[in-house]
């Protein structure tokens, strides 16, 4: 073996020695979530160290369902996340298309306002949003309250604006020459071309809605209207509650997303990395 490839091997071993413990530490909370969700409560609160799954998961799901209607809350969360994702992808890609491909009065102002306010903390709009939705519109504890206000999110507009503006103009001009209407060009030429970007955007939006906590906690606090994270959150800190059940709920919230993440990792990472693209 040459000294050069020896040095390379040495570096490779060092690299894996550094990265493996860090990776194991990072996986540990997720692993323990799964382990806890399969243990009976008296096993979780016992002095021994348990690092392997047991077989109590279904009992824990039943315990959780006894503490709160979690399955119903999951139903609300899924419906809200799906509806929100479809609406938000549609709205933001239409707006992104307009900003990318047309010249119009006020365009500069619209772009400036979106960019100028994007780093403002969400906390700033929380109180007026709550007053408006709960008091003025009297929509607390409805699906509309969960779906519509978060549609303001402007990251998708900037993301789709960039996606559409990178497409060559000839693609659309050819259709225009043949007299195709603008909305048909958008729907049948531009959107299909933007499929990878739409997938990335949809995944990020779905995840944001699925995990959203603060707004649903404030606006839908009645038991029958709670989303799954809010329902689970109400149990944390109670004294007479099944912790195995809470962990089973955490697993039900997390594992589907982990599977989606593994299957669609490329889109996921594209969506997150795009946050950095100006």
């Amino acid at each position: 073996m040459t000294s050069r490839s020896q040095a390379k091997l040495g570096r490779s071993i060092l690299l894996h020695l550094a990265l493996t413990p860090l990776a194991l530490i990072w996986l540990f909370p997720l692993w323990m979530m799964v382990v806890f969700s399969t243990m009976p409560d008296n096993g979780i609160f016992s002095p021994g160290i348990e690092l392997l799954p047991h077989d109590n998961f279904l009992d824990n799901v039943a315990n959780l369902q006894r503490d709160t209607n979690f399955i119903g809350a999951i139903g609300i969360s899924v419906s809200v996340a799906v509806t929100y994702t479809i609406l938000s992808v549609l709205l933001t890609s239409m707006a992104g298309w307009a900003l990318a491909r047309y010249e119009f009065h006020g365009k500069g102002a619209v772009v400036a306002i979106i960019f100028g306010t994007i780093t403002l903390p969400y906390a700033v709009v929380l109180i007026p949003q709550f007053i408006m939705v709960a008091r003025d519109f009297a929509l607390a504890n409805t699906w509309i309250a969960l779906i519509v206000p978060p549609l303001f999110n402007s990251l998708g507009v900037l993301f789709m604006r960039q996606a559409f503006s990178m497409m060559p103009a000839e693609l659309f001009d050819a259709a225009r020459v043949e007299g195709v209407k603008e909305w048909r060009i958008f729907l049948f030429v531009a959107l299909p071309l933007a499929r990878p970007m739409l997938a990335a955007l949809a995944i990020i939006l779905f995840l944001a809605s699925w995990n959203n906590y603060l707004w649903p906690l404030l606006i839908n606090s009645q038991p029958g209207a709670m989303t799954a994270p809010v329902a689970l959150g109400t149990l944390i800190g109670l004294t007479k509650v099944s912790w195995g059940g809470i962990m089973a709920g955490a697993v039900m919230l997390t594992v589907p997303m982990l599977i989606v993440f593994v299957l669609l990792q490329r889109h996921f990472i594209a969506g997150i990395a795009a946050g950095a693209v100006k």
Partner: protein
Amino acid sequence: MRTQNATAYRFLTPYLLIFAIFWIWPIISSFLISFQATRTVPWRFAPTFNWGRLIGDPAFYNALKNTLLILVIQVPVMISLAIVMAVLLNSPLLKARGLYRFAFFAPVVVGEVAYSAVFRLMFSLDFGIINKLLNSVGIPKVDWFSNVTPAMALIMIAVTWRWAGYNAIIILAGLQSIPEDVYEAATLDRVSRLRQFFHITLPLLKPVIVFCAVLSIIGTMQLFTEPFLITERGGPGGGTETLGLLLYRQGFRSLNFGYASAVAYTMAGLAIAITLVQLWLTRDPK
């Protein structure tokens, strides 16, 4: 491109309506509400009512102090860790890359409530796995929830676990956009890898790192769920109270919208200041 006002606004209007109603108007509205006394009906204009109270409120200073303390410690630690993760994940020598990527990036999909529950259980005093593991190597158990310093550390550990991989994804994308030939020249000149990292990689990554830092600062500044659920409403005794919790308590427990809006605008002021620092740090040197 010719001007196409009608077509453009047909595409734009649905989004702009939502954006105006649920983002722009609330930004203006909460500014106005912060100058009103909101615990009397009808609300009345009283410019110093909330802001005057804020300046003299020990609870506000406690929340501000805790929030800034978390910012100053947690954000640099997390960004450094994210840089290490990204650089190591980017190495061509790495085997089983997918597994390592999964380990670091998986927390990105985990919801705040789910991971808060797990951390709470893992760190509990007598039966938490962390204390059991510490005990088994001879370290006395730590009471993570009744003492302020361990409680703050726990919040920082939890947030770092959740967000380091997220930042590593962004930094990794930045690393991959650095052209290879920059390093080839340096390697030919026998510049050591460590020096390459500090003199080539870090300077080229600066805009990305500053971007991550700004995102993280603005995110951590609004920290709410972790002290709400993990340390039980900012406990022990307000030791992990944050501006986000104070806003929640004032706005949605005491229904004191005016005061809560003043807290919200304090956060906005900090965010604006930090964004200006970012623009200054990443300006084009002329």
